[in-house]
């Protein structure tokens, strides 16, 4: 029998090689999927590109496909403005909460808040949108009766998106802040700086690239968000007038695609223009991804040579030969930044004031605001740093409390109003009167069926690809392409998956609305998450285990399969469950591929359409007045299903964390 250089038997080696080929083949699926998505989205937008003037498409200010007016500018502006507003709210609040968790709260609290953030980021967006619709809009109508007749507005969209983005931003920026070496804090404190001074001048500046990454991640999510935005923005393609009119009704790219795609005719310019919107959306997300990669790269470059306290401007200009410029600016930094800050305060207050009153009064209020800032600064300057430290402490605690309160109110309110609506009939009977009464059994079963099938497709693909990347790949061109594809796939907005599925599966393959179509679309969507968590879990397994196994004569595949994967099981399973929980709440990918609004019976086969909880909730809330009780009941059940998944995931993680130690 032939043996290789290690004296191992050859046939085992051949099996090993076979497994390698299988893994390579499976992992190439990701490249295939992203290529298909690009080809189909671009291909379907071709009719629009060749029939419409691209420049006019991008700059035209009227979107009215029935009249042949295709001006996407209001939609692009809507997406950007809603995202901007969300970040203006979520970034400062999220950052403050992250600082509180990492620097002020006891270490124990971190261990609680992190998984809680995970749960909140898993609550389906349609539930956040529903909460916005039922609670936020009436509230806004009461607060601004003259400005907000309907409540539906850019402001409402930004608030809902901001609340949705909070958990992600808190969690990721907390990681960044937590990663700042302890020695920085100790050095600063040893110099006599207070805790607040240490936080604001040392820790946060040192973590700035990680925080930026968190913000960019939040921006990416917000740009691609569909359902929540659709429920609260009014959905009329409109340029805010003036541009900073946060009370204006707006429509986003995703909302327009979601509302118009089902009505559009296959092959028409109208449908093709929606795909072109999808291309624009993908391009925006791509730009955001590239930015985030640059930020991370910079962060890597700078590791170990952090210069705490350098101004943001100086850090951005960094080592690129522009250091001298940075120095000059740095000398006048304090004054320059302060003046700039005052100008910003003035412009912001002026702009907001013009929405309520005339120009004259707005200028006055702007000046007043600046005066107040200068006054406040004076007063703060007079306070000793110990009291300042206390004040900052209280402020951060208050913000953290507010964040917890907001999130608790959302869950609590829906539970309190939803639980009374849930009865045995409600979960065991089909809907009647086109959904106005009866139960939601087909929607519950449909959602579970969608989750099961999605898991069946996504788990093997994702986990095998993760194994390939972690255990078999070297840094070759092929691996880089796969990683690139996974990144792209991860950034692709969920609605683009829906569009892709509707063309490939529903139309080309002629499946119509089918359960299997939903499986494939959702599986493609959660694939990158599974791959990533699997890879991370495998990489966390110590090298010693692999070496020990190989030294005993086990083949590469046997080592992976019998030693490494079992050791990483906790991480892999958690990641898989979390991703399937997320799939349960997704609406955009299934609304064009699998889920129908009303179907009183269960699907007979996997080629039948199904009902799904998120879409059912959306439909009830938007199109069926007088079904409030059903809506809360549906929202409650959807939320409970997702919560069960997340709690299971964290229990499994705890279990494995206890069991596996090295």
């Amino acid at each position, binding site marked *: 029998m032939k043996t290789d250089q290690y004296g191992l038997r050859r046939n085992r080696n051949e099996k090993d090689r076979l497994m390698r080929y299988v893994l390579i083949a499976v992992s190439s699926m990701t490249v295939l999927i992203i290529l298909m998505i690009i080809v189909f989205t671009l291909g379907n937008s071709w009719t629009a590109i060749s029939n419409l003037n691209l420049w006019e498409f991008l700059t035209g200010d009227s*979107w*009215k*496909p*029935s*009249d042949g007016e295709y001006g996407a500018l209001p939609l692009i502006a809507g997406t950007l403005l809603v995202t901007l507003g969300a970040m203006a709210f979520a970034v400062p609040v999220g950052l403050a909460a992250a600082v509180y968790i990492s620097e002020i709260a006891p270490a*124990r609290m971190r261990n*609680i808040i992190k998984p*809680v953030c995970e749960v909140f980021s898993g609550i389906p967006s349609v539930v956040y949108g529903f909460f916005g619709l*039922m*609670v936020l809009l*009436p*509230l806004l*109508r009461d607060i601004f009766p*003259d400005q907000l*007749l*309907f*409540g*539906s507005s850019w402001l409402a969209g930004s608030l809902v998106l901001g609340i949705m983005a909070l958990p992600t931003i808190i969690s990721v920026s907390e990681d960044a802040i937590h990663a700042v070496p302890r020695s920085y804090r100790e050095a600063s404190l040893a110099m006599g700086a207070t805790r607040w001074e240490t936080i604001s001048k040392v820790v946060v500046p040192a973590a700035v690239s990680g925080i930026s990454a968190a913000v960019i991640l939040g921006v990416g999510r917000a740009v691609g968000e569909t359902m929540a935005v659709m429920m609260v923005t*009014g*959905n*009329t*393609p*409109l340029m805010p007038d003036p541009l900073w009119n946060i009370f204006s*009704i707006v*429509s986003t790219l995703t909302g327009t695609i979601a*509302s*118009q795609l089902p*009505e559009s*005719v296959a092959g*028409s310019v*109208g449908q093709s223009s929606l795909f072109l919107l999808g291309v624009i959306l993908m391009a925006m997300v791509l730009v955001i991804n590239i930015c985030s990669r640059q930020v991370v790269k910079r962060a890597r470059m700078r590791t170990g040579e952090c210069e705490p306290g350098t101004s943001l401007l100086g850090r951005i200009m960094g080592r690129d030969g522009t250091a001298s410029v940075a120095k000059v600016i740095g000398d006048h930094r304090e004054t320059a930044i302060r003046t700039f800050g005052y100008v910003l305060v003035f412009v912001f207050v002026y702009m907001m004031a013009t929405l309520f009153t005339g120009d004259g009064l707005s200028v006055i209020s702007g000046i007043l605001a600046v005066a107040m800032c200068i006054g406040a600064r004076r007063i703060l300057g007079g306070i000793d740093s110990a009291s300042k430290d206390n004040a900052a402490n209280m402020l951060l605690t208050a913000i953290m409390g507010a964040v*917890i*309160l907001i999130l*608790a*109110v959302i*869950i*609590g*309110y*829906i*539970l*309190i*109003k939803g639980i009374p609506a849930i009865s045995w009939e409600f979960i065991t009977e089909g809907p009647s009167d086109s959904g106005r009464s009866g139960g939601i059994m087909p929607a519950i079963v449909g959602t579970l069926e969608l989750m099961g099938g999605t898991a069946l497709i996504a788990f093997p693909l994702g986990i095998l690809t993760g194994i390939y990347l972690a255990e078999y790949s070297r840094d070759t061109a092929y691996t880089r392409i796969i990683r690139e594809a996974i990144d792209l796939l991860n950034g692709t907005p969920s609605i683009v998956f829906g569009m892709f599925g509707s063309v490939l599966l529903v139309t080309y393959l002629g499946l119509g609305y089918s359960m299997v179509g939903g499986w494939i679309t959702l599986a493609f969507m959660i694939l990158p998450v599974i791959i990533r968590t699997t890879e991370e879990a495998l990489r966390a397994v110590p090298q010693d285990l692999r070496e020990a196994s190989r030294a005993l004569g086990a083949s590469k595949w046997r080592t992976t399969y019998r030693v490494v994967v079992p050791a990483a099981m906790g991480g892999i399973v958690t990641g898989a469950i979390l991703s399937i929980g997320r799939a349960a709440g997704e609406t955009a990918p299934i609304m064009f591929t699998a889920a129908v609004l009303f179907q009183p019976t269960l699907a007979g086969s996997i080629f039948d359409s199904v009902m799904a909880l998120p879409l059912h909730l959306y439909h009830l809330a*938007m*199109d*069926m*007045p*007088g079904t*409030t009780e059903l809506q809360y009941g549906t929202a409650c059940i959807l939320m409970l299903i997702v919560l069960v998944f997340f709690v299971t995931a964290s229990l499994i993680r705890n279990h494995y964390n206890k069991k596996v130690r090295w």
Partner: protein
Amino acid sequence: MNNKTIAIAAVVIILIAGVGAYMALGDNGEDNKSKPIALGYNGVEPTEDNVLNGTYTIQRNLVLVTKGEPTGNVKAFLDWITSEEGQNILGEEFVKLDASSMTTYAAPDEKGQTTINCGGSTSINETMSRLAEAYMAKYSYMTVTISGGGSGVGEKQTDAGVFDIGMLSRDMGSKYDGNLVPIKIGRDGVAIVANISGVTNLTGEQVAKIFSGEITNWSQVGGPDRAIGVISREDGSGTRDCFEEAMKAVDPEWELKDHYVTQQSTGGVIGMIQTTEGTIGYISIGQVAAL
């Protein structure tokens, strides 16, 4: 503190927050006192009778066209649509033909053409799908397909022979006289609905000006001093087409001002009007009962 305490604490916080929010917010949006009503238009109530006798003017014909006189199973299907049975289905969304124009029908021939392709106006798409479904349930050997595209596509593709039946939400264009044969199957009427006390009727001109943004306060049309919130259906909706046509008949230059909230369905319009005082919108006359 162990994990159990923490979990219990979290649940307690969430429940307290929920109860607090429930007490503070109450049943938001449901305790609205003012009720939406369908307004008179030029002094005429939006009823099916008034649509049929032509006094209510926000309306249009629903027409099916065939290439040449319909024959065989296509004729059987059309006869069924204009029969009492078909008309009852159509009446769920639109205004039926008057009883004297209804027809009798015969069962389609199992050996004849068993697949009928229909296409055209998206506004009657849903009703046609419902008709097709009922017809296929009645005669299981028949297949009726429905596709969209708009009234213009319906005419063109029927003329080209792609569709057996073209669906139009307006009268047939004179261009096709002699080639296509129109069959009237019903009418579509649109009612103006509003949630404001003190206003029960608007003139065509007032409605046009409200939707074009020239009139922005209810006091300008005899109501209380309150801003008008305009709700419209989405671009491409058949109800919107019908409404816009009527407005253009009032003023050829008329255009919808774009500061409206878009709703994707009649239910959406009704829901928004119910919860928000000072709003105005329009819905299909067949749905007025749902207010």
